[in-house]
């Protein structure tokens, strides 16, 4: 029995790894997730095969209740509420670790007769699990807007407070490790660690929450691995460590993609100055990476490219055409919407796109394509500004009021490539950039498009 269980565990973690590999690529992600889930089923079955397992009723009860709660929660949550859902699931995972550690302590107070690593691992799991549980709950609250998104801090006392809580938790743990069997100490460990989790996450701004959730996710993974060590359970060790390692790399990438660094975010949690995400001028602007733009384009049915003076300045025409060709090869429909006054001379865009050998058939006049935007998945604006400015339609006080513009804002998603939030020829701000469905990819148009090309090829 023990051998079968061990073999199944190996099978389970092999499935986890294989599934995780799949999850990193858009083509294989769906299957990867299913494979990992299969691995989990194998792991659970293997565990139930453990000889001499008792309390079957309670175990079954737990599994059923958990399933009954989990399925509808996952099914009914709105797509926009996904991040907080993940935070919640992560939290309960951490909670499970902490609770398991507590039970272990209760069953064998003082860890009598266990080698040293058992209490160490168990207490590590308890602390991290509790931090993760409570921290995740706070993150959930912020994302769900139950708690205010802005940083909540106690000012200069934040750092000493947090340190105190953490040191307290560790101190209690050390006492237990040294042999104490007082249950209150363990409860103290859990409570202090939980408070620390709360105290660290509260001062971090809502914009940073996704990174925090990812970090807590990696933590939970580590705590699971520690719990696995304590129980000498291979599946838990591998799965937990897998999540701990991949989760930390993922967190790093997420932070980078948001132009943040993990240390500065955590510093925020300790009352550091770099608390809030940088505020971009004039309204919330969503900036994305070239990789995302590539995915959005690759999985779109119809893309309209809107070139402007910025494409000309960057001389990005060749790169743009490379990109379009890759998309067409993938079966994505691509058209260019040429505004009559895009650029700085009549026919400016034509000259450049002809140089890059864009087939004339793909160039559409404004009147011809303006109704298409509403049926378009992605409008990709490359260095155009005034010719996409909705103020021309709806702001009579604007100097460009009355000029016909491209209906870029009617596309399902808008991606704008430019270097900054600066205005164009007419010198007026563009409300398109702060539209919630607009994402900005900042940088010189040529480099940006080149990056997109690279990412498209890698898909």
């Amino acid at each position: 029995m023990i051998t079968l269980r061990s073999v199944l565990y190996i099978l389970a973690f092999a499935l986890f790894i294989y599934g995780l590999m799949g999850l990193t690529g858009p083509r294989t992600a769906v299957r990867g997730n299913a494979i990992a889930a299969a691995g989990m089923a194998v792991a659970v079955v293997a565990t139930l095969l453990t000889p001499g397992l008792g309390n079957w009723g309670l175990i079954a009860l737990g599994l059923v209740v958990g399933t009954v709660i989990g399925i509808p929660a996952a099914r009914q949550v709105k797509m926009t509420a996904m991040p907080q859902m993940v935070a919640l699931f992560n939290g309960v995972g951490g909670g499970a670790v902490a609770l398991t550690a507590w039970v272990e302590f209760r069953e064998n107070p003082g860890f009598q007769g266990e080698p040293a690593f058992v209490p160490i691992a168990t207490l590590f799991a308890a602390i991290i699990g509790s931090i993760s549980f409570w921290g995740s709950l706070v993150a959930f609250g912020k994302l769900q807007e139950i708690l205010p998104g802005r940083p909540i801090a106690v000012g200069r006392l934040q750092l000493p407070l947090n340190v105190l809580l953490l040191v307290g938790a560790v101190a209690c743990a050390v006492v237990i490790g040294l042999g104490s069997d007082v249950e209150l100490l363990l409860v103290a460990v859990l409570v202090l660690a939980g408070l620390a989790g709360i105290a660290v996450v509260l001062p971090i701004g809502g914009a940073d929450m996704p990174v925090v959730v990812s970090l807590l996710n990696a933590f939970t993974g580590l705590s699971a691995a520690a719990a696995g060590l304590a129980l000498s359970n291979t599946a838990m060790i591998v799965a937990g460590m897998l999540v701990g390692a991949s989760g930390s790399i993922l967190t790093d990438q997420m932070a980078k993609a948001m132009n943040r660094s993990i240390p500065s975010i955590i510093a925020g949690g300790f009352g550091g100055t770099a608390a809030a995400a940088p505020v971009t001028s004039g309204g919330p602007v969503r900036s994305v990476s070239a990789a995302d733009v590539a995915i959005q384009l690759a999985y779109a049915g119809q893309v309209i490219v809107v070139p402007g003076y910025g494409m000309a300045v960057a001389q990005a025409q060749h790169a743009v055409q490379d990109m379009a060709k890759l998309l067409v090869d993938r079966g994505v429909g691509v058209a260019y919407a040429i505004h009559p006054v895009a650029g700085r001379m009549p026919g400016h865009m034509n000259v450049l796109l002809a140089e890059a050998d864009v087939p004339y058939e793909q160039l559409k006049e404004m009147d011809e394509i303006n109704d298409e935007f509403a049926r378009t998945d992605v409008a990709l604006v490359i260095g155009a500004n005034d010719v996409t400015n909705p103020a021309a339609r709806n702001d009579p006080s604007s100097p460009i009021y009355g000029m016909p513009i491209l209906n870029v804002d009617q596309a399902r998603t808008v991606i704008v490539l430019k270097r900054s939030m600066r205005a164009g020829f007419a010198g007026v701000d563009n409300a398109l950039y702060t539209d919630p469905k607009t994402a900005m990819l900042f940088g010189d148009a040529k480099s940006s498009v080149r990056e997109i090309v690279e990412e498209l090829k890698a898909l």
Partner: protein
Amino acid sequence: MTSQEAQRTSVGVPRESTPGERRVALVPGVVERLCAQGLDVVVEPGAGQAALIPDDAFTKAGAHLGDPWSADVVVKVAPPSAAEIAKLPRGSTLLGFLAPLTDPDVVARLREAGVTGFALESVPRISRAQSMDALSSQANVAGYRAVLLAATECTRFFPMLTTAAGTVKPASVLVLGVGVAGLQALATAKRLGARTTGYDVRPEVADQVRSVGAKWLDLGVSAVGEGGYARELTEEERAEQTQRLNAAISGFDVVITTALVPGRPAPRLVPAEAVRRMRPGSVIVDLAGSAGGNCELSEPGRTVVEDEVTIAAPLNLPATMPEHASELYARNVQALLELVLVDGRLAPDFSDEVLAATCITRSDPGEGHP
């Protein structure tokens, strides 16, 4: 046949009388749209002939042939001659290039004749009015044609060609004054394979020059004027500019000049001495001919060879590509007409920024207006 047909506002399209003017104010495609809007278009027989547009193309589009001068609105390309103004009934309306800054006589005669005149030169350069901006649309044609002219006159290839009979170096083209015409000239020359360089007094043009793949010639003189135009240079600035340009010009195979300052004589950018220092067989195309020319040796309206350098100063390049020049012009006219007409009837709102700027004479002068 006169134009009193029904109650519809009539639009008259005369045949241009200015020598060399091959354009026509409306083209069949635009006529069709105007007719669809309920206008009555009267085209003078042979109006499109110089543009190789046959009369029946107009009639097929819904116009009829007849006397255009008695129409409610007459649309023209070139400024009207005295004889033409005489044909206009008092109270009628005229749309076209009316040379308000360069030929004040026209304005005077129109006022005398009691004609409301809308000058397309005066369309303000604001985003909303771009569809009426005939200066831009025609400058665009001129820039393109200037390069064709230069390439035709040049004794050398524009592109670089490596051949069994040796390698031909690419021609180097300098454009002085990079407005609409200059940019199009740079772009077209680049297309033909030349190395291109642009120069202007307005510093923001540098980026625009680069945006058509050309190099920017930096002489360190800047003169930004009003409304996106350049201002005239001071005496010292001019001397400085001339001297530096002088040095630069001799290295180019082709120089295309388009420098203009509204209402002023064209700046003299290419002195005779610079021409003498150019390689034999080089070409200068001077688009500022009508304002006196940017080159000292230009003879507006003629092509001369001086010191083995060909100097062309065509007065009306857009007219050499009449069909498309007319088409673009006709669209500008259409856009302006749509502003002048309300529900198919003449009812200009003179408080509108565009019409206020464009209207140079009024048959019933409103308050405070010329």
